[in-house]
C-alpha cells in the first residue's frame, strides 16, 4: 500500500504536467486561430473588432476545391498505405536481402521534402518539357507518355514523398511484434499468405489505422506538391487555395482560418473512430514472454520482394535525385542539353547563399532539439493517453491531434499571433521555431509512439508495480526498454520532419532564425529550378551525413536485446 502511494503522486505530477504543457502548446495558438475564424471585422486590425460566423458560410463557395482535396488526399493515402505497409512488412518481417540498407533508404524520400519530389517529378513528367516525355517523343512517340499534372499524378508524388511516414509508423509497429504468433500459424499449417492475412495484418491493424488517419490528415495539409503540380492545370486544393488567400492583399486570413478550423471537425470524427477501434480490441503483441525479432523465411519470393524494394527506391529516390542532379548541372534544364548548356554555376551560387550556411545549421540544431525534447514529451503523452488511468487522459489525445487537423500554413498564423503577444521575448527567434515544431509535430510523435505502446502488455508494468517498483523506476526499467525500437524510430522521424518543415516556418522565421526548407522554396519561386535542384542536393547531402551519424549511434542503442 505504501508503494502505491509512493508512485501515484509521481504519476499524477508527471501526467498532468505533460498534459498541461501539451494543452498550452496547442490550445494557446488554437484560441487565436478560432478567434480569427470568427473575426468578421477589419482583417488588418487585431484583436478583432467584430465576431460572426460569416467566414464559415463563405466556405460553401469552394465546393470544387473541397472535392479536389478529398480526391487527391484519399488517392494519396491509399497509395501511401499500400507502399508503406508492403515495404514495412518486407523490410521488418521477411528475410529479403539488404533490408537494413533499404530500411535506411526508405527515409530518403521523406527528407528529400515533398517540394523537391514534386520538382523532380515535374521535371520528369510535364507533358511538354518532362524528361520522360522528351525521351518518349525522341523514340517516335506522339504527344506525351505521362502527365504529372493530373490529380493522380499529384497523389502519386504526395504518396511517395509525404507518405513515407506511413512506412515509418507501420515499420516501428511491426518491429515490436512478437513473431511467435506468425510462427505458430505456420507450424499449424497455414500458408504464408494466410499467415499474413490472418495474423500479421490484424495485429498491425491499430498501427495501420493510426497511420491511415495520420497520413490522410497529412495529405489534407499537403502543400508543396499541389503547389508545384496542381497550379499548371489550375487544380486547386485547400492548402493552395489558402496560400492564395493569405498571400494576396488584403489577405483573406479569416476565411483561411475558418477553412482550417472546419478541418478540426473532420479530424475529431476520424480520431473518434480510431479510438473506438483500438479500445474495442486487444492488440497486445509484447507480453511478459521474452522474444527476439525473427524473420519470416519467404523462400524464392524474397527476390520478387527485392525487386519491389528496388523499384520503389528507384522511383522515390534514385530517379528524383538523378533528375535533380542532371537539372542542377544545366542553365536551363532540358532532357537533351547542348554542351554550352552545362554549368557548375548553380552549385557555386548555392554554396554562397545564406540558405546553405546559417539556415542549414539552424535546421540541424532545431531538428536535434525538437527530436530530443519531443521524444520525452511525446513519449510521456502517449503513455498518458494509452496507459495511465488519470481522469481526462483520453481528452488529451483530441487536444494533441489539433495541429494535424489544420494545414500548417494556417496554424502558423495562430502560432504567430499567440507568441507575438507572449511576455517572454521568444518571438522571431529559434526558440519560437522550437516551440512551433514541438507543437505541430505532437500528433506525429504521439501517434508513432502510441502504435508501439498499444502493443505492450499492461501486465508487464503491473507486475513491476506489484513487485514494489515505483512509477519512475517502472517507466525507466520496463516501459522505456520495451519501447526502445519505437522511440528510436520516432526520434529519427521527428528529426527528419523538423529539417523538412515548411508551412509553419515560412511565417515564423525571424531575421536571425532562418531554416533551410523555406529557403529552398524561396529559391524555387525566385531563382530557378536548376539552382533549387542544386540547393536541394546540398541539403540532402548534409542531412544524409547527419542522419548517418545519428543512425550509427542509435543502432547501438536499438540493437541491445530486450530481455
Amino acid at each position, binding site marked *: 500500500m505504501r508503494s502505491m502511494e509512493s508512485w501515484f503522486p509521481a504519476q499524477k505530477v508527471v501526467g498532468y504536467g505533460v498534459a498541461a504543457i501539451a494543452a498550452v502548446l496547442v490550445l494557446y495558438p488554437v484560441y487565436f486561430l478560432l478567434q480569427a475564424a470568427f473575426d468578421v471585422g477589419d482583417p488588418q486590425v487585431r484583436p478583432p473588432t467584430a465576431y460572426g460566423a460569416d467566414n464559415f458560410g463563405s466556405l460553401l463557395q469552394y465546393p470544387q476545391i473541397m472535392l479536389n482535396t478529398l480526391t487527391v488526399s484519399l488517392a494519396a493515402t491509399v497509395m501511401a498505405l499500400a507502399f508503406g505497409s508492403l515495404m514495412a512488412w518486407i523490410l521488418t518481417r521477411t528475410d529479403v536481402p539488404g533490408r537494413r540498407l533499404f530500411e535506411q533508404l526508405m527515409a530518403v524520400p521523406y527528407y528529400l521534402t515533398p517540394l523537391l519530389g514534386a520538382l523532380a517529378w515535374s521535371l520528369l513528367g510535364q507533358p511538354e518539357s518532362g524528361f520522360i516525355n522528351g525521351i518518349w517523343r525522341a523514340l517516335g512517340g506522339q504527344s506525351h507518355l505521362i502527365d504529372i499534372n493530373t490529380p493522380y499524378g499529384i497523389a502519386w508524388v504526395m504518396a511517395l514523398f509525404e507518405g513515407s511516414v506511413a512506412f515509418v509508423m507501420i515499420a516501428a509497429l511491426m518491429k515490436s511484434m512478437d513473431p511467435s504468433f506468425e510462427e505458430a500459424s505456420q507450424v499449424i499449417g497455414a500458408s504464408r499468405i494466410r499467415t499474413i492475412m490472418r495474423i500479421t495484418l490484424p495485429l498491425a491493424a491499430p498501427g495501420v489505422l493510426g497511420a491511415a488517419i495520420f497520413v490522410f490528415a497529412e495529405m489534407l495539409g499537403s502543400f508543396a506538391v499541389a503547389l508545384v503540380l496542381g497550379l499548371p*492545370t489550375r487544380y486547386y486544393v485547400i492548402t493552395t487555395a489558402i496560400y492564395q488567400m493569405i498571400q494576396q492583399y488584403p489577405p483573406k486570413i479569416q476565411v483561411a482560418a475558418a477553412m482550417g478550423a472546419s478541418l478540426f471537425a473532420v479530424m475529431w470524427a476520424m480520431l473518434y473512430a480510431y479510438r473506438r477501434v483500438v479500445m474495442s480490441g486487444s492488440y497486445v503483441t509484447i507480453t511478459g514472454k521474452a522474444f527476439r525479432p525473427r524473420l519470416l523465411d519467404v523462400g524464392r519470393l524474397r527476390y520478387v520482394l527485392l525487386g519491389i524494394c528496388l523499384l520503389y527506391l528507384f522511383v522515390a529516390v534514385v530517379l528524383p535525385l538523378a533528375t535533380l542532379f542532371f537539372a542542377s548541372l544545366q542553365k536551363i534544364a532540358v532532357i537533351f542539353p547542348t554542351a554550352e548548356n552545362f554549368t557548375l554555376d548553380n552549385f557555386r551560387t548555392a554554396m554562397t547563399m545564406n540558405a546553405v550556411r546559417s539556415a542549414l545549421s539552424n535546421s540541424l540544431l532545431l531538428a536535434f532539439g525538437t527530436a530530443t525534447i519531443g521524444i520525452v514529451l511525446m513519449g510521456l503523452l502517449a503513455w498518458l493517453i494509452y496507459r495511465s488511468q488519470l481522469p481526462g487522459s483520453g481528452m488529451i489525445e483530441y487536444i494533441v491531434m489539433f495541429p494535424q487537423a489544420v494545414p500548417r500554413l494556417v496554424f502558423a498564423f495562430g502560432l504567430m499571433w499567440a507568441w507575438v503577444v507572449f511576455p517572454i521575448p521568444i518571438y522571431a527567434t529559434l526558440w519560437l521555431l522550437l516551440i512551433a515544431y514541438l507543437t505541430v509535430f505532437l500528433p506525429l510523435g504521439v501517434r508513432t509512439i502510441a502504435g508501439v505502446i498499444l502493443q505492450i502488455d499492461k501486465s508487464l508494468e503491473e507486475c513491476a508495480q506489484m513487485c514494489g517498483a515505483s512509477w519512475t523506476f517502472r517507466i525507466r526499467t520496463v516501459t522505456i526498454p520495451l519501447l526502445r525500437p519505437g522511440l528510436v524510430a520516432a526520434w529519427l522521424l521527428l528529426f527528419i520532419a523538423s529539417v523538412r518543415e515548411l508551412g509553419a516556418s515560412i511565417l515564423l522565421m525571424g531575421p536571425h532564425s532562418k531554416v533551410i526548407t523555406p529557403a529552398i522554396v524561396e529559391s524555387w519561386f525566385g531563382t530557378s529550378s536548376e539552382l533549387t535542384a542544386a540547393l536541394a542536393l546540398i541539403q540532402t547531402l548534409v542531412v544524409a551525413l547527419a542522419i548517418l551519424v545519428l543512425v550509427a549511434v542509435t543502432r547501438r542503442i536499438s540493437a541491445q536485446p530486450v530481455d
Partner: protein
Amino acid sequence: MVERTHGKFTRREVLKGGTAVIALPSLGIAAPSVLAQGVSRSPTKVLDFMTNADVAKAEQEGQLVFYCHENEAGTAGIMEGFNKDFPKIKTSYVRAQTGALYNKILSERAAGRFDVDVIQLSDIAPAFDFRRKGGYEHYVSPESSAYKKDHLSEPNGYFFWTGVDPAGIAYNSEKVAASDAPKGWKDILDPRWKGKISCKISASGLQFVQWYTLRKIYGDSFWKEFAKLQPRAFDSRVQLFDRLSKGDDMITAIGEYPAYILFKSRGAKVEFVAPPDGLVATPLVVGAVNRAPHPEASKLFVDWAMSKRGQVWYQSNPNLYYGSVRTDAPAMPTGVKLSDFKLLYPSDWDEYASQSAAFLKEWNSMLGL
C-alpha cells in the same frame, strides 16, 4: 502644406498643392517646413551620396532589419549591396509576399513589437494603408531631390519608389514564330493561346496594375475574354519564364522585363514584346518604419537606396533588375533606360487601391478559386 490623414490624394491635388515643394528640392534645397518634421541635422556626404543620418551612430547601432516582398535572392541582393558599402552594419531580413508580410508587420506592431527598420512592398495600396496607420517614419532624404514628386509619398518623407517593374508580353521563340507573336495587348486574347498562356496570381501587385490599366483602356470585357483562354497563374516572374523557356507555356501575358533580361542571359529562347499602348508597370516602394530599433541605420538605408549608387545596384542585380525612376538614372544592363519605355500606371492611385476587392474577385474567380 497640410498633411492629410485619411490618405485620399489624387494626382490633381498633388500637382495643385505641391508645385513649390517640387521646385525647391530640384534645386537641391529642401523645403524647411517639410524637413523640419523629420530632420535634426544637416545633410552630410557619405561615399557619393547625401544623408541626414548620423553614420557613426548608424554603425554603432550595428544592425539593419529589412522586411521585403522580393524573393530570397533579390532581398539578399539588396542587403548585400548595402552591406558592401557599410560593412559595420550587419543586415538581416524577413521576406514574404506583400499580403502576408504586411499582415505580419501589423500583427507585430499590434502586439507592441517594433523589430523592423525598413520595409519594401510591391504594391502601393498597402503602402497607403501603412501610411494611414502611421507605420512609416517621416524622414525626408536629401536624395529625394533627384526624384519626381509622383515617385514620392505625399507629403514627401514616408516612402518612395525604389524601382519600377515593367511588363509586356513574352513568348517562346521556338514555339511561336515572330510573325505570329502578339504585337499588342489585344493580341493576347487570340483563342489560339487557350491553355498555353500564363499570368500571375492575385497576390501580385503588378497583376493588379495590369488588370486595372488594361481594363481602363480596353473595357471590362478584356479580362472576360482573357478568362476564356483558361490561363495558368503562378507566383513569380521566374516561374513564368521558367515554363516559357521550356515550352510548357507558349506566351505569358505578363512578361516582366527584369525576368526577360535574366532568362535571355541564360540563353533561353524567349522574346519580349513591348505593346504600343505601353508596358504595365508597378512601383516597388521603400520606407523607413517608425519606432525602428535602428533608426539611424534605417535612414542611412533609405538614403543609400535612393542614391544613384543604390539605384545602380537595384538596376544591375540579376535578381532585381528594377528600372530606376531617378531623374539621372543610368541605363539598365541591356542599355535601355526605363524612360525609354512607355509605361502604363494607374492615373489615380486612390481609385486604383479602391478596386482591390473587385480585382481579387474577378481574378480568383477566373482561376477557379
